[in-house]
C-alpha cells in the first residue's frame, strides 16, 4: 500500500477582502483575544484532565481553530442559533456557555450541561441558542437547516450558523440540506471548518472538489473562502453572510481555512502529517498570536495582556476544580429524560 500523501502545507489564503480584512477596534481585538484564549486554555486543560483519566471516551480539541468560532460569534445577533459536530467545546464557550458546565460535562458530573449524560460530544444550551454537540458526522447539517426552517416559519429574522468540517462535507445529507435550504431560501450560514484533515485523511485524499466554497455551486448557494486563522477576516465574512441570510436571500457557505494543532482526538498519534507542518502553522499563523501582536503594536501594555491571561486561567482552573469535585450524577438519573 502506498504511503499516505502528506498534504501540501500551503498557508490558507484569504480571498475575502484581497488579504486585508477590516481593522478591529481595540475593544474588538481585546474581546477576540480574551475569547480565543479562553478556548485555548480550556482545551489545554481538558487535554491534561484527559491524560489524568478524569475525562473519558472521545475528546476532540479545538486548539488552533479558535478564530473561527470567535469571529463568527462576533457577527451574530441575540437569537441566532449555533449547531456543530463533535469538536464542540470552542463553540460552546464562544456562545457564552459557562466553562464550569462544559468541563463538568467532560468529566461526567451532575453539574455538566447535560447532567453528565451527554459528554464531550453532546451538550446543549437553550439559553445560549446552542443546539449541540452532535456525534454523527454530518447530521448537524440537516438539523441546522431545520433550525433555519424554524426561523423562516416563525419569521423571526434569526440565522442558523451550522458548522461542519471538511470531512462531513462529503456526507450525502449535506447536499440534501443544501438543496432544500436554497429551494426554500432558508437563513443558514454553512461554516465549513476546513482544518485539512478528516481524522487522518487529508482533504486531497478525500475530496474531488477541494475548494469547499464551491460545494454549493450546483444549488446556486454562494460561497467564500476565508482565512480562518484571522479573526477579523472571519468576522467580516460572517457579517456578509449574515446580512445575506437576513435579507431573505437564502443560505451562504463560508469555507474557513483553518488548522487543528492537536490530533483528531486525544487518542490520535497524528502520523499523517509532519511535526514541521504543525510547527509552521503555529509559528506563522496562530490566531491568538496575530491578535496579540497587533495589540502590542498598538501600544497595549504587556501588563494589560497578562491581566487577560490571568482572568482566563482563573476561569479555566476553577472549571477544572469544579469538574473534578462535583459529584457524579445520582443513580436515579439513569432513568430520567428519556421521555417528557
Amino acid at each position, binding site marked *: 500500500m502506498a504511503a499516505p500523501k502528506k498534504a501540501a502545507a500551503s498557508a490558507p489564503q484569504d480571498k475575502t477582502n484581497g488579504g486585508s480584512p477590516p481593522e478591529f477596534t481595540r475593544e474588538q481585538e481585546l474581546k477576540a483575544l480574551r475569547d480565543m484564549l479562553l478556548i485555548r486554555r480550556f482545551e489545554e486543560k481538558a487535554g491534561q484532565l484527559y491524560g489524568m483519566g478524569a475525562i473519558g471516551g472521545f475528546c476532540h480539541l479545538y486548539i488552533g481553530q479558535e478564530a473561527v468560532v470567535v469571529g463568527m460569534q462576533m457577527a451574530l445577533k441575540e437569537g441566532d*442559533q449555533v*449547531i456543530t459536530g463533535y469538536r464542540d467545546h470552542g463553540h460552546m464557550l464562544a456562545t457564552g456557555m459557562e466553562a464550569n458546565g462544559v468541563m463538568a460535562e467532560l468529566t461526567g458530573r451532575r453539574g*455538566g*450541561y*447535560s*447532567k*453528565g*449524560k*451527554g459528554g464531550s460530544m*453532546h*451538550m*446543549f*444550551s*437553550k439559553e445560549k441558542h446552542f*443546539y*449541540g*454537540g*452532535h*456525534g*454523527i458526522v454530518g*447530521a448537524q*447539517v*440537516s*438539523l*441546522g*437547516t*431545520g*433550525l*433555519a*426552517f*424554524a426561523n423562516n*416559519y416563525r419569521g423571526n429574522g434569526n440565522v442558523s450558523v451550522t458548522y461542519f468540517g471538511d470531512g462531513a462535507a462529503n456526507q*450525502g*445529507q449535506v447536499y*440534501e*440540506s443544501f*438543496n*432544500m435550504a436554497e*429551494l426554500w431560501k432558508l437563513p443558514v450560514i454553512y461554516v465549513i471548518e476546513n482544518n485539512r484533515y478528516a481524522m487522518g485523511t487529508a482533504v486531497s485524499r478525500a475530496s474531488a472538489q477541494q475548494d469547499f466554497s464551491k460545494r454549493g455551486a450546483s444549488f446556486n448557494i454562494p460561497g467564500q473562502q476565508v482565512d480562518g486563522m484571522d479573526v477579523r477576516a472571519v468576522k467580516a465574512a460572517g457579517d456578509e453572510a449574515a446580512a445575506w441570510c437576513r435579507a431573505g436571500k437564502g443560505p451562504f457557505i463560508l469555507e474557513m481555512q483553518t488548522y487543528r494543532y492537536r490530533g483528531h482526538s486525544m487518542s490520535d498519534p497524528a502520523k499523517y502529517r509532519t511535526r514541521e507542518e504543525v510547527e509552521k502553522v503555529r509559528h506563522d499563523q496562530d490566531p491568538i498570536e496575530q491578535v496579540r501582536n497587533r495589540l502590542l503594536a498598538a501600544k497595549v501594555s504587556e501588563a494589560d495582556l497578562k491581566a487577560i491571561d490571568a482572568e482566563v486561567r482563573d476561569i479555566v482552573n476553577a472549571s477544572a476544580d469544579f469538574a473534578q469535585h462535583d459529584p457524579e450524577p445520582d443513580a436515579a438519573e439513569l432513568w*430520567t*429524560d*428519556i*421521555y*417528557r
Partner: protein
Amino acid sequence: MPIQVLMPALSPTMEKGNLAKWLKKEGETIKSGDVIAEIETDKATMEVEATDEGTLGKILIPEGTADVAVNTPIATILADGETAADLAKAPAAPAPSVAQEVAESRSPVGEGKPMISAPKAAPAPQAVAEPDPEVPAGTEMVTQTIREALRDAMAEEMRRDADVFVMGEEVAEYQGAYKVTQGLLQEFGAKRVIDTPITEHGFAGIGVGAAMTGLKPIVEFMTFNFAMQAIDQIINSAAKTLYMSGGQMGCSIVFRGPNGAAARVAAQHSQDYSAWYSNVPGLKVVAPFSAADYKGLLKAAIRDPNPVIFLENEVLYGHTGEVPKLDDFVIPIGKARIVRSGSHVTIISWSNGMTYALKAADELAKDGIEAEVIDLRTLRPMDTETIVNSVKKTGRAVTVEEGWAQSGVGAEIAARIMENAFDYLDAPVARVSGKDVPMPYAANLEKLALPSAAEVVEAAKAVCYR
C-alpha cells in the same frame, strides 16, 4: 365473441371503486385508447381507456354505482360484425347484483352525488365486540375511511396549534401519494403543508432540527421502507437528544406513513418496522388498526412532546370504520384495547395483524374456542398489564404480526408473558409471523409469506391442545 371490460384497479391495494361516469353510450364506436368511463376511489379519480376496438354493446354497471369490486365486468364491447344478439354469448358475468338502496357517496371527490351501492367487495373485519372505553356511551358515530380519519386528525391539530405543520414527498399539491393529506394544502397553505424533494435523510433531519426549536412537525414518509434512509436522524437525533441534553432539548415530532406489506410490491417495499422502532428508548411507537384509533392516536401523537413513530398500513387506508363524532377525540398512547373478549386463549396483535386475528377468532368460535383479542395499538410503551391480565385469565397466548419472528414484537410479548405470568401459562406462547424471507412478488408466494387467519387458528388450537 363480445369482449368484457372489467373494473380496473388503480393501485396495488384497491379492492373496489365507484363507477362515476360513462363517457360513451351504448352503440357508440370505440377505438383503442378512447376514454370510456371514469372510476374513482376515496383516493383518486381515473379514466378507463378502451384496449379493444368495436362498439359499446352493453353497459353492465350504470354510472353512479358505488363499491364495484375490482374485476367485475362493467361493459361489453362488440367486435366488427357482432350485434346486440351476440351479447348473450359473452362469458357469464359474475357481476354482483346491484342493490337498489341509495347511499350517500363517501368519496371526497364524489361531490356528494347519490350513489347506488353495490355489495361490498371485501368488508373489513372491523367487528368489535367490546365497547371502546375511550368513547362515552351514546356518542354519535360517523363512518369514515382510515385515510379520512388520518386527514381529519391532522387538520384538527393544525387548526388547534399553529406550530404543527406537515412535510413530506407529494403531501401538498399532489394531495398525498396515498391521499392521506388530501385538502390540507387548500386549508392551511404552502407554509404549513410542505412538499419536499425526494430526500428522506435530509428532510427528516430538517424536521428534527425544527422540532428542537419547539415546532411540531408531522413528517410523512411515502412509506417506512424509505425511512431507512433517514433512520439515523430518527434514532440518533430525535430519540436520544432529550437524554443527551439532560432534559433540556426534546423533540416533539411525528414520523408517519404506511408500514409493512402493501400488495404485490415485493421485498423493498414490504417490510414491517414495528420491531425496529419499538426497540429504541426515547421513541414512542403507535400502530393502530381501527379508523377511530387511527384518528384518536394520531391526534395524541401530534400533541405528544416526544418523537412518535406512527405506523400506518396501506392495505387499511381504504377500510371504513366508525369514528366518534366528538370535538376532540384523543386516545392515550400506551393503552391496548380488548376488542373481543374470550376465556380460552388470548390473541395479541396490532395494525393489519388484527385482520388475521379477528378472522381467526370468528373461526375459532365455530369450534367452541372463545378467543380474547387484544389490539395493542401502541408498541412502545407496551401495555404489558392488559396482556398479562388477559393471559392470567386464559392461560394461553398467540401473537400475530406481519413482520419477521426473530427479535420481533411477538418475541417481546412472549418474553413479557413469561416474566409476568409464567405460572398462569397452560401452554408455551405461540407466534404467528411473516415468514423468514424477503417478501416475494408472485401472488401465491406473497400470500405464503404473510401470516393468515388459518395459521392463527392453527396456533390457537395448538396452545389449547385441540
